């Protein structure tokens, strides 16, 4: 039988299937020349490997490690000077306490979530009016009344919808980020209605637990909100004032 050069190579590299591997092994037992060629290929591989092996033991330039760690958010190691500099610098636009608080609240919204959350008769949380998706029922009520600054985004046993944040979009309309078991999204107040700008499937908990982790969608929604928003999100006082004025 013939064993090709490519097969010898693949034999040494561990790339042959079991059947072919067995065939080559048998052939090499009967063919000294073949056995030599296999040994030579193996020796070449070992020699190259051994030649480059010491590189791995050389100390890596510290500057490389520093540049990587500087570009990736650090594990919390507190550098006092850097910390002071950070505090002295103006807060970045989207790191305001309002967003941080909202995200935090979204992480642990308290409430028991059950199947029939959207009460209020046959009407669902979202209806189509004149070609636009409009919030109705519980969702409409939640958008009208719940404050993101309240505990758990204002969620309670009756309206298990959390408000994650409130902001102005370009043009001045107020928009709100919400998350619920059936749907999550962003709605903007326009013409006296909450029009849905983004809708994602809700994040119903797999099991009914008192504590519920924020879905990964919360993060996606907050990112969307940041791209839509003009200026900072509303803080608790501003949000309350906006509610009192009917979100106009």
């Amino acid at each position, binding site marked *: 039988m013939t064993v090709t050069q490519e097969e010898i190579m*693949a034999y040494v590299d561990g790339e042959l299937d079991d059947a072919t591997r067995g065939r080559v092994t048998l052939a090499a037992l009967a063919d000294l020349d073949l056995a030599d060629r296999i040994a030579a290929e193996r020796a070449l591989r070992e020699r190259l490997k051994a*030649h480059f092996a010491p590189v791995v033991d050389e100390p890596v330039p510290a500057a490389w490690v520093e540049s*990587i760690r500087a*570009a*990736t958010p*650090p594990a919390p190691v507190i550098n006092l000077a850097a910390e002071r500099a950070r505090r002295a610098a103006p807060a970045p636009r989207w790191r305001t306490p309002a967003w941080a608080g909202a995200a935090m609240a979204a992480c642990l919204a308290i409430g028991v979530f059950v199947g029939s959350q959207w009460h209020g008769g046959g009407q669902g949380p979202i209806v189509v009016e004149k070609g636009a998706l409009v919030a109705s029922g519980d969702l409409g009520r939640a958008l009208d009344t719940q404050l993101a600054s309240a505990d758990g985004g204002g969620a309670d046993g009756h309206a298990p919808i959390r408000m994650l944040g409130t902001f102005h979009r370009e043009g001045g309309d107020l928009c709100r980020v919400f998350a619920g078991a059936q749907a999550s999204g962003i709605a903007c107040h326009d013409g006296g209605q909450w029009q849905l700008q983004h809708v994602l499937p809700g994040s119903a908990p797999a099991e009914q637990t008192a504590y519920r982790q924020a879905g990964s969608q919360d993060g996606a929604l907050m990112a969307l909100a940041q791209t839509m928003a003009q200026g900072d999100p509303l803080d608790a006082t501003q949000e309350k004032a906006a509610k009192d004025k009917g979100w106009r």
Partner: protein
Amino acid sequence: MASAQFGENLVRLLPQMRRFARGLARDGADGDDLCQATIERALKSSHLWQEGTRLDAWVYRIMRNIWIDETRARSRRAQTFAPEEEGENVGVPGDAAIEAHAEMSHVDRAMASLPAEQREAVMLVLVEGFAYKEAAEIIGCPMGTLTSRLVRGREALMKALGETGIPETGGAETGGMS
């Protein structure tokens, strides 16, 4: 911005990235430059890395692409600036400089004399230990192309390093690989 986890995984890969870079670039200083350029690009495009896929293969692909671009750019520069009578020899740029390094070992010299495409195939499979399929993906070529480059690269190395084992008449077995 890349996550801290991404950063730490990248830090852990640095020693072997450096090994691959040195093999490709044929020289310690050039290898480190290549490694640094790779780190910068990996950080800049970290959002393109898909969680759950192999970070090492991803980083090697970046390194290999930077190196190929650089090799081509050098080759162009050499062709542009070399006097005409030297223009014949620019196919493998830097050979003269490589040979001038008297301290280079046999293996370094043998590796340096390989065409780039064979050298990267040899590095990925024999030194870095990637499977053929993975190596072909890093290079972005079909498996068959990878294995034929490997065969030719190994033959050249055997010859240069004086390993025995390939009979002169073995052409029938390796024919048709290219």
